[in-house]
């Protein structure tokens, strides 16, 4: 691999052991993938924040690295935590977990990382411009950054993203190379796909079929994404929420890091992004997918909106559905703290709380220690959450649109 004199000096330890280790990680991955050289990154999103996943192993490693002097060189945001850092008692988590969780975030902030604790960094200020090179982890954010924002990032892991932040560089391979951004699969959609619910189900269906390929959707009726004055993608909030849910589903049932929508996403508006000899997939119905995401449960203990983290518009929709009602099921709307603050200003947090729900900042049900709590069943509008509920949280799940989820919240029962 070709390194500049400065990069070679960093790898040799000129700036100390912390940067040296980061360079070792980045160059090792470059060697694994045959990268020709390194490129600077504009921002980093670091996953591996919940203590439940990271454990003492990751906590100790990060504490050691921070103590060695590791500091991020580029704007770096943090993935969701296992809990709301202010309301974890209301969520029901233990003192032991909370203490460890606080230590995890402290190790990251010691390295200069912003404790954003969200999987939607692009909604709270870390919004890359089209064409920028990034090193992001968190599969739902990666697929959004590549597809909706037209930035360039591989599907980094937590440690490799952190290494890229500490040396400000990543190896140039994978989706940093133009030829790898062409679609491997053409997805012809013949059934109506209009609601967020349908986009989400489509993502889940297609992710299973394309694995780590790049799908290009043909026949989806959405207005083209435009470039805002700041050079980053701009789109209406309902389309944004639909594409966010679809991408998260593609990245969880498969390992999709990039999709195109012909005539809609920025890279696929003026030229075909379909590569040579694509696999052809036709989608005629979403009903079997929706059925597959629903366990045969009637009683709902917990309703989760916000996987990926809820946008301001989604929180507004929940508040409208719950206005003046009382919930039998627990309701968690998970989001970024900055988005929660905006929702609070509009009175939506108070309305949701008056109905018995919680607007959870920082946290995520997929990575939370849900087995500490007594829930058995869950309803959600996210295929990712529905599919991960059982293996990650021990909960059986229902998947429906936001209104169906809110009806279940009020009655405590799922209307099939």
């Amino acid at each position: 691999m070709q390194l500049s004199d400065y990069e070679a000096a960093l790898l040799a330890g000129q700036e100390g052991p912390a940067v040296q280790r980061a360079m070792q990680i980045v160059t090792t991955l470059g060697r694994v993938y045959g990268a020709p050289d390194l490129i600077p990154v504009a921002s980093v999103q670091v996953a591996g924040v919940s203590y439940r996943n990271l454990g003492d192993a990751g906590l100790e490693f990060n504490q050691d690295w921070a103590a060695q002097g590791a500091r991020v060189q580029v704007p770096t945001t943090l993935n969701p935590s296992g809990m709301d850092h202010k309301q974890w008692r209301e969520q029901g988590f233990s003192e032991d977990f909370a203490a460890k969780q606080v230590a995890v975030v402290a190790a990251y902030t010691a390295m200069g990382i912003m404790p954003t604790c969200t999987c939607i960094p692009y909604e709270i200020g870390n919004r890359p411009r089209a064409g920028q090179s990034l090193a992001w982890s968190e599969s739902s954010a990666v697929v959004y950054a590549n597809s909706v924002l037209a930035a360039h990032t591989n599907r980094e892991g937590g440690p490799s993203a952190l290494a890229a932040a500490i040396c400000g560089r990543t190896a140039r391979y994978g989706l940093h190379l133009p030829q790898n951004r062409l679609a491997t699969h053409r997805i012809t959609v013949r059934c109506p796909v209009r609601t967020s619910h349908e986009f989400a189900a489509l993502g889940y269906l297609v992710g299973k079929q394309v694995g780590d390929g790049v799908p290009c959707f043909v026949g989806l009726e959405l207005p083209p994404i435009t470039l805002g004055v700041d050079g980053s993608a701009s789109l209406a909030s309902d389309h944004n929420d639909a594409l966010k849910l679809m991408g998260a589903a593609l990245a969880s049932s498969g390992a999709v890091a990039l999709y195109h929508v012909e005539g809609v996403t920025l890279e696929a508006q003026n030229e075909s992004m379909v590569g040579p000899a694509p696999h052809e997939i036709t989608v005629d119905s979403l009903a079997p997918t929706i059925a597959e995401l629903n366990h045969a449960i009637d009683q709902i203990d917990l309703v989760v909106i916000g996987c990926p983290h809820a946008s301001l518009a989604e929180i507004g929709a929940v508040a409208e559905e719950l206005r003046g009602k009382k919930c039998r099921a627990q309701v968690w709307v998970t989001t970024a703290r900055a988005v929660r603050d905006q929702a609070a200003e509009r009175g939506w947090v108070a309305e949701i709380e008056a109905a018995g729900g919680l607007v959870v900042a920082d946290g995520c049900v997929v990575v939370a220690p849900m087995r500490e709590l007594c829930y058995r069943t869950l309803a959600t509008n996210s295929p990712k959450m529905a599919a991960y509920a059982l293996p990650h949280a021990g909960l059986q799940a229902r998947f429906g649109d936001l209104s169906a989820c809110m009806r279940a919240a009020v009655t405590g029962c799922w209307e099939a």
Partner: protein
Amino acid sequence: MGTHLQGRAIVEGQAKGLALVSRTPISFLGGVDGERGIITETDHPLYGESVAGRILVFPHGKGSTVGSYVIYRLARAGLAPAAIINVSTEPIVAVGALIADIPLVDQVDISQIETGMPVSLEGADITLG
């Protein structure tokens, strides 16, 4: 002398030990206990085996990238494999082996290696028997 295999050294080093071979991928997060060094994925063919001091041979890693830290934890607990041999390594194992200082070689035809065989490894060179 035994059979020689040549791979690609991802983390350079030397090691000797008895092979522990999995024909299926290994998930370190949730699949290996970092405190005890035991494979805990219930339907894995190596369920219950200890990786400590073994030449751990498997196609590639799978699952969460947090698995890299489990490999680091194994090393801190003195329960790390002596070396890792993969068919095609990926970031979980590559980063884990690097931060735990475990020699790692990939692009190896692992069909020739059986559990229990003595294996010695130096850089990209592997000797069986």
